[in-house]
């Protein structure tokens, strides 16, 4: 158990609870966070669940795999700490994590 904070591009904050083991995309979709589409349902194949992880949490989310890196490279608004939220599986260590949403999804 823990909480995660989503910050929309217009700075609106959403603090939601999570259970370890599901993806950040799933948490966002389950809580109807605007700005996360998740069109492919978590297959890392559509680029519509882009989030920007805050610097201090980025390393805890692991390293993007080859598939993710490939799709990230096509994302116009990519930053140094961009991830696809379907590829971040939350653990108890991620309690208190903050992620920002880009202005647009691909």
């Amino acid at each position, binding site marked *: 158990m823990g909480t995660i904070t989503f910050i929309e591009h217009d700075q609106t904050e959403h603090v939601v609870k999570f259970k370890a083991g599901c993806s950040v995309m799933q948490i966002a979709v389950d809580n109807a966070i605007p700005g996360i*589409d998740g069109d492919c349902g978590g*297959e890392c194949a*559509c680029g519509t669940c882009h989030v920007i992880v805050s610097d201090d949490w980025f390393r805890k989310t692991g390293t993007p795999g080859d598939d993710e890196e490939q799709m990230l490279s*096509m994302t*116009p608004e990519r930053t140094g700490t961009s991830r696809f939220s379907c590829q971040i599986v939350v653990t108890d260590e991620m309690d208190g994590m903050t992620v920002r949403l880009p202005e647009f999804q691909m």
Partner: protein
Amino acid sequence: MSTQSGTFDDLQARMINATAKVVPMHRQIQGLKHLMSAKKAIFGPRRPMTEFVEKPIPDVSTLSLEDIDVSNPFLYRQCQWLPYFKRLRDEAPVHYQKNSPFGPFWSVTRYDDILFVDKSHDLFSAEPQIILGDPPEGLSVEMFIAMDPPKHDVQRSSVQGVVAPKNLKEMEGLIRSRTGEVLDSLPLDRPFNWVPVVSKELTGRMLATLLDFPYEERHKLVEWSDRMAGAASATGGEYADESIMFDDAADMARSFSKLWRDKEARRAAGEEPGFDLISLLQSNEDTKDLINRPMEFIGNLTLLIIGGNDTTRNSMSGGLVAMNQFPEEFKKLKAKPELIPNMVSEIIRWQTPLAYMRRIAKQDVELGGQTIKKGDRVVMWYASGNRDERKFDNPDQFIIDRKDARNHMSFGYGVHRCMGNRLAELQLRILWEEILKRFDNIEVVEEPRRVQSNFVRGYSELMVKLTPKDKKEAR
């Protein structure tokens, strides 16, 4: 393709690129046409001329599995595609047809299998073409939709800005005023064909804007696209005369070279570059010399034109067809206009304006209990995946508040996912918002006429009659 003619094609491309700086592009393409006629006269055609003649398609239940050929370009027109694909999904989800007019090919028809193939660009190559058949011989233009990474990534990133959401925000007002203009000009007292007057007109205007193409010549963009996508040898379309494609390519080359040179000159004179496609290409290190690589230049422009033409056009028409088949949904929409964004996804799922994309296996792959051999053609039938009952409940129903409408496959998945998806959604959303402001009903008064193609699922004629909103409540 024999090795000899493969080498010939390769030599030809290198020759064209090498002479690009001194010979105008349209002359090169005309030269190519004569070279091809001469080659055909000497060696005979590499493949027989294709022309498709419509015959009634048999009921799928009377056929053995191996005789099912979903490449038939009349399958959609004769409304037979639903039972054909359902039988494949149920009995042979990875199906081999060895005798089609386009050569042997595999059909992948279930949602999950299509997603797997689309994602696996390491196993399945998009090169050299994404349509089932071959383009006119000698006119193998290069486009990034039919390139694998890493070359694909470089080319796509140089042009995707033109349809990126950031750029679209600027365009919303323009799209809305044009849509309003077209809708306000429609006849209210008699039935008319929605396809040329609305669907083609709106997509043609959009393309002219994206390319900064002379506005009064925008019909050319639509005609080029229709003929390129409608080549008989490529998609079973109605255009069997390949020499016309060369004339079109030469015409395109002339128009776009002129556009390119004009922009170059204006920029050299100190003018600020615009946000149109050619300006973006010229601003990018990797593509600023694209004009010196004619087959790539023509290829990528063709891709943008076709990508923004048949797709959105047929979703604009398809939405009306769907609303007329499911009139309860139109009532639902009028009561809850906030459903428009979800309805747009549902229209794109239900219509699936492009039926498939093709791949070639790069190695032997096991899928659905079959072994796809290295070098085999594999067709991912998005139109079937979008009606897969394993993924969507009541998949043949048009349901504007369907929960998982966004999961449709019409945009493809993976690195080749549609680059213009947000523009398409925006155009359709605005069209329906403006329709609701003006009309109480749009009745389809005749059976629509469908296009001949195994690739484009579209309409050539859609006769409709408008009922304007009661004046008191209008706007």
